[in-house]
């Protein structure tokens, strides 16, 4: 179980806790596969999507997850709100809690925003980090781990022996950090592949390998995770031209053909087709990009369910 009542970072989860989320998501997928599309579990409870940054799939995915558990969802996006009048994170969050929010899903451009919200004592709600600056995006890492696990059933309880490449804009990527932490804690070997300018300082403390050469690594990878080149965060010249980036680190047909037989292609979305991933690779048989989206809803349902449970100590037999 997630003991802190929040999911701010992958570090909030032990290895067993991570498997608990993944197992719960798998059972939810079995339940919602058939006739049942909606479960009554969180009926009457309110979840807020507090989004200070643009997002399509993460916000929709959390919303879908909450609705499939019958929770009420309030969507908040900074654009068109009082945030543009200068309202602070604290006041916004307290306002939403006063309206009955019990769990806040927050995305913010500043690293640590979710932790601030959870730990400052401003609000009593559970907090789920849906991406904070260049720091972490734990539910994305969980859905990626879920997707990898479904494709490698022989690694169901242990990712040891899987080699996973994360390619591209590591510097600006919260997805890369969360994934590196989670996948290595599950036992996988993670290699970050990027031009030196897009590797963050301090990466030596991460439990990963670093490579600057995609072609040297491609044949050894079981899964390749292409990261979006985050032009909106790039206020410097990190590479000479888009064409040169695509040639060095883009995933085109030739590289796809060099991959292991069962290797899969992942992308957290949104994709820059033609830059980090070619259209043919994104649509190839190896691509699991749409599965990642469906799995995202399941994993987020699991997180909401596990966070919103009570805390009383179970008494044997009382509710049998």
């Amino acid at each position, binding site marked *: *179980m997630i003991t802190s009542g929040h999911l701010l970072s992958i570090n909030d989860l032990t290895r067993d806790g991570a498997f*608990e989320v993944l*197992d*719960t998501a798998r*059972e*939810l997928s*079995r*339940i919602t596969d*058939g*006739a*049942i599309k909606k*479960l*009554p*579990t*969180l009926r009457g409870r309110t979840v807020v999507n507090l989004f200070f940054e643009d997002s399509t799939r993460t916000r929709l995915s959390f919303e879908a997850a909450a609705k499939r*558990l019958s929770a009420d969802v309030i969507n908040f996006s900074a654009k068109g709100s009082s945030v543009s009048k200068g309202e602070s994170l604290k006041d916004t969050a307290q306002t939403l809690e006063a309206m009955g929010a019990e769990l806040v899903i927050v995305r913010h451009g500043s690293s640590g925003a979710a932790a601030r919200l959870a730990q400052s004592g401003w609000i009593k709600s559970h907090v789920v980090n849906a991406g904070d600056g260049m720091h972490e995006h734990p539910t994305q890492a969980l859905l990626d781990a879920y997707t990898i696990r479904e494709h490698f059933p022989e690694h169901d309880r242990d990712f040891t022996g899987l080699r996973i490449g994360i390619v591209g804009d590591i510097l600006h990527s919260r997805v890369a950090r969360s994934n590196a932490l989670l996948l290595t804690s599950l036992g996988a070997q993670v290699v970050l592949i990027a031009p030196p300018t897009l590797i963050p300082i301090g990466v030596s403390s991460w439990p990963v390998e670093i490579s600057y050469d995609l072609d040297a690594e491609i044949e050894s990878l079981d899964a390749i995770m292409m990261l979006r080149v985050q032009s909106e965060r790039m206020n410097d010249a990190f590479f000479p031209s888009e064409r040169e980036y695509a040639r060095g680190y883009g995933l085109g047909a030739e590289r796809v053909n060099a991959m292991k037989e069962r290797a899969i292609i992942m992308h957290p979305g949104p994709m820059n087709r033609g830059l980090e991933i070619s259209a043919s690779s994104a649509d190839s048989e190896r691509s699991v990009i749409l599965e990642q989206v469906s799995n995202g809803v399941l994993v987020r349902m699991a997180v909401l*369910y*596990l966070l*919103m*449970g*009570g*805390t*009383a*100590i*179970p*008494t*044997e*037999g*009382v*509710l*049998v």
Partner: protein
Amino acid sequence: MSVVLDQSEIDRSLKRIAHEIIERNHGLDSVILLGIPTRGVTLAQRIGSFLAQIDTQVPVGSLDITMYRDDLRLRPPRPLVPTQIPAEGLEGKNLVLVDDVLFSGRTIRAALDAIGELGRPKTVQLAVLIDRGHRELPIRADYVGKNIPTNARESVRVQLREIDSLDQVEVTL
């Protein structure tokens, strides 16, 4: 602590329940058994094998009701366990729910909600190994292994050899 049912008594109770199921449904056409995890599933399988000995084989499945409980606020979330609905579905069946202990009735209410999502059985019947009283909802069992009057603070512990390596029901304070 006192043992209220031992292995042979559990066997006899389940065999009797099997006979009663046949009697009440005039045979086993369109009867299916659904056990409520964990021990309800084991009991459903045992009743199923008695039915097969006496008459004929019926489909046996399991129904996890965790997501339908109304006490999520009060208790830590429980791990989910598989729900297996027999391939022929529930539509028009005489569905027998099987659980180990009937107490407040809330588990059965949750199970009825879950069944409502899955289809429309012709009838829903309830078989339990132990009925210990203290109902909080208007729910009763159709087939009861043994009625055990209990104090609300006592707990009833059902152990089955498939899970607990012995067959025994005990009441502890």
